[in-house]
């Protein structure tokens, strides 16, 4: 089976994976990482997002850069940041429902902390993402949350598998053993 436009990546942070160009997410840099433009959203294991909520957002331009990301509503029910029309415009999104909102997690911290002041807004269909900064809310940049038992070893265990298309979609291939 031929796999055109497939990029093989040996990422120093998350391991080896393959990603189709059509699954890459394009950012115009992130605060502090202006050169980080192409990312792959990856599931770390086969467990469902509802069980193990963290995914990797791994940079293709900097193979040492990856962020643990999660659906903030898993930890903070009702989190629903206001998204400006300009944010949606920049993502080529017509409506709020076109985009998903993820939070960057700092798992080096104990307890882990979520950045709720600057969520990632991703339009999967357009392969575009942005880290927006919420000017007018009192959301914290480092909200402590409880680490789910299922995520205790996130980032330190076995293999990474690409989960393309949508956060929560099916896993593409079986893990290597």
């Amino acid at each position: 089976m031929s796999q055109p436009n497939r990029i093989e990546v040996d990422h120093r942070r998350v391991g080896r994976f393959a990603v189709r160009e059509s699954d890459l997410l394009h950012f115009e840099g992130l605060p502090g990482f202006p050169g980080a433009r192409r990312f792959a959203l990856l599931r770390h294991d086969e467990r469902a997002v509802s069980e193990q909520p963290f995914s990797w957002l791994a940079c293709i331009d900097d193979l040492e850069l990856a962020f643990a990301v999660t659906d903030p509503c898993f930890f903070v029910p009702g989190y629903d940041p206001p998204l400006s029309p300009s944010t949606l415009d920049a993502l080529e999104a017509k409506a709020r429902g076109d985009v998903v909102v993820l939070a960057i997690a700092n798992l080096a911290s104990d307890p882990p902390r979520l950045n709720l002041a600057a969520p990632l807004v991703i339009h999967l269909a357009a392969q575009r993402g942005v880290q927006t900064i919420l000017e007018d809310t009192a959301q914290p940049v480092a909200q402590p949350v409880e680490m789910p038992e299922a995520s205790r070893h996130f980032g330190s265990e076995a293999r990474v598998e690409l989960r393309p298309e949508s956060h929560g979609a099916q896993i593409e291939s079986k893990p290597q053993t």
Partner: protein
Amino acid sequence: MLVLTRKVNEALCIGDEIRVRVLEHSGKQIKLGIEAPRRVRIVREELYLKVVEANRRAAEDSTQEEDS
């Protein structure tokens, strides 16, 4: 750094699309009005720097020592 002096109501242009005007000055506070395309993100510097710091911390590898 380019340093310019402006009076209240005077503005400066950054490129063709961005205009920053001094609207009001009272005590230590200056009120600025900014005209810019919607795609240009405008945030207070201290908040931007907090996000930079949070991103850098989140990017640190907490499991490095466990790798072999």
